[in-house]
């Protein structure tokens, strides 16, 4: 039995900060936690590790965190597309491995190396092709995505081994590829970028508010909007200022930021993005509404593999080499765990790019912090597993809250 939600009057009442805060609190109590748990989690992680080892919150380690998070954040953003559909992609780890190995081999100075740009395009196209293959088998043949991508996990692992062959390890020597994760932006330029980002964000808010007011629709209170813009400005300023105390903002971090903005736009402001959520929420309803469900699914798996390849390239760049283990280990399950920790539902229809980004930051902070404490990778995996379980439990409990308030 669904209970009638409390009715609120619309109009002027919504425009006060108090009413806005009250609505937010009702949502939280009703189980719509948003990014709240993960931000609390990040603060707890920072406090715990800083008290154990005062190197955790230094500028140098902060830049390390960005560099380490970047590849997993990229892969996690990709796998979010599969998770939003209620599907899964287990192959992302080794698909990222294929990306890393492919770029390393294509630009390796062995006499017949490719130019950097065509090599990049070829790798990313390979990513799209791999996703297309997965997507076609899932939609047209009807094999569950779990099985298709499990087969992919094995097969792409094999491809990594075949590509590496007897070489064992390939050292990256291409300046551009290595620079991706190991070069840093000029401090002055990073502040210009900061101004552009905050300006654009404010402009978007301003135009939205103006067009909504023109159409006679309620807007969020001005104070809240200013707080949002101010919040972004403060966070970005802290990130840039701290990073500039050390080596500067890594290019891989800027790439992650750009991808984040792009995919968030795609998911929330385009028809395709709307259809992704719709298919994840109710496939039959989407089909009846005239949405080409197969097309949406295939595109999602293509984006997933594309981002995996890109993440693999960044990872290879950070490690400056690829070997037979590329794509295994952390690249396999960290991204899925990151998306889920961030609050993306495995049942589809709920999740954001922000979840992937913050989730990856949590995973890597734990990994990095435990490393600073000199703990073994055994301990790392146990702790990370515990955090994943905790995050999903929190999601389940909050979902129970939603069910009780009729939002299941």
């Amino acid at each position, binding site marked *: 039995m*669904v*209970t*009638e*939600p*409390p*009715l*609120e009057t*619309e109009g002027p009442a919504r425009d006060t900060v108090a009413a806005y805060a009250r609505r937010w609190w009702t949502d939280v109590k009703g189980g719509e936690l948003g990014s709240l748990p993960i931000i609390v989690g990040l603060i707890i992680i920072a406090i715990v590790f800083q008290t154990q080892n005062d190197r955790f919150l230094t500028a140098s380690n902060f830049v390390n965190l960005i560099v380490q998070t970047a590849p997993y954040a990229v892969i996690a953003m990709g796998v979010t597309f599969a998770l939003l559909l209620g599907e899964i992609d287990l192959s992302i780890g080794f698909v990222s491995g294929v990306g890393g190995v492919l770029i390393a081999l294509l630009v390796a100075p062995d006499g017949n190396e490719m130019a950097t740009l065509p090599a990049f395009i070829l790798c990313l196209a390979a990513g799209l092709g791999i996703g297309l293959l997965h997507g076609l088998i899932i939609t047209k043949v009807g094999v569950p995505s779990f099985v298709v991508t499990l087969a992919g996990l094995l097969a792409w692992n094999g491809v990594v081994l075949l590509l590496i062959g007897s070489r064992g390890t390939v050292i990256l020597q291409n300046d551009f590829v290595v620079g991706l994760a190991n070069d840093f932006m000029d401090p002055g330029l990073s502040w210009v970028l900061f101004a552009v980002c905050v300006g654009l964000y404010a402009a978007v808010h301003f135009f*939205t508010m103006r*067009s*909504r007011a*023109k*159409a*006679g*629709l309620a807007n969020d209170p001005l104070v809240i909007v200013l707080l949002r813009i101010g919040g972004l400005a403060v966070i970005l300023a802290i990130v840039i200022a701290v990073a500039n105390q050390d080596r500067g903002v890594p290019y891989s971090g800027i790439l992650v930021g750009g991808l984040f903005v792009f995919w968030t736009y795609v998911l929330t*402001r*385009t*028809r395709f993005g*709307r*259809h992704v*959520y*719709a298919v*994840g*929420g*109710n496939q*039959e*309803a*989407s089909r*009846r*509404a*005239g*949405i080409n469900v197969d097309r949406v699914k295939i595109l999602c798996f293509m984006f997933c593999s594309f981002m995996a390849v890109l993440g693999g390239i960044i990872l290879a760049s950070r490690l400056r080499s690829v070997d037979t283990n590329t794509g295994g280990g952390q690249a396999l399950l960290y991204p899925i765990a990151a998306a889920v920790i961030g609050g993306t539902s495995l049942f589809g*229809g*709920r999740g954001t790019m922000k979840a992937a980004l913050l989730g990856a930051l949590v995973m890597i902070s734990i990994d990095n912090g435990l490393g600073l404490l000199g703990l073994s990778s055994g301990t790392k995996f146990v702790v990370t597993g515990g955090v994943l379980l905790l995050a999903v439990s929190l999601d389940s409990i909050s979902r129970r809250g*939603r069910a009780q*308030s*009729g*939002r*299941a």
Partner: protein
Amino acid sequence: MTDTPVLELQGVSKNFGAVQALFEVDFHVSPGEVMALVGDNGAGKSTLIKCIAGIHPIDGGEIRFNGEPVSIHGPKDAARLGIEVVYQDLALCDNLDVVENMYLGRELTDGVRKLDETTMEAKARETLKGLSVTTLSSVRQTVAGLSGGQRQSVAVAKAVMWNSELVILDEPTAALGVAQTAQVLALVKRLGEQGLAVILISHNLHDIFEVADSITVLRLGQNVAEFKRTDTNQQQVVEAITAGKLSKVPGQNAEAVA
């Protein structure tokens, strides 16, 4: 109310293999008319609306829309004519909000292929207001948080938003409580008052006598009676549902009947 029916079916038949689901059914509904379609389980109500909605092709007979013979080959054909069906399971996405659901699959975009949220929200509110759906606290809340009656209202609003001429409601009150049923029935009445043709499928005679202008009774795939609500009573309708005179007895050949 004009004399030309919006939708007119003449002698429509439909077979599934050896099973004759519909046999020479005549049916019509006019603008501003709420036509109830009743019958026992297996009488062919669902098959009939699926034929109208283009999900099943018809095997015989003719469908006329606004007097013109039409052939409906798929849900898209039906939608193009202005026929919208609200299915029993509503076909809403729980994770999307009211506006997103109402525009699902037909989202408006602006010049740069960006979703035009402002226009969509304004128009959705207008449509809901036109139907006097006032119980929603916000059109930006997710459908999951709505009551059964509110969900039904959203599904109906979604159907009438597209300049549709004929709205088919499949058991709209089946899963609802008393207050919510009243809410939905009032909505059905308003659809008729706005000049739309409405086909209402229901098992609940009480509901039907509250809102329908006319009642068509199906029995074993044939239409056995048609009543004006004002000229009949529940007793007569029940008799027609259970024992209406058939022109053809199932299981016998047409020759045997002739």
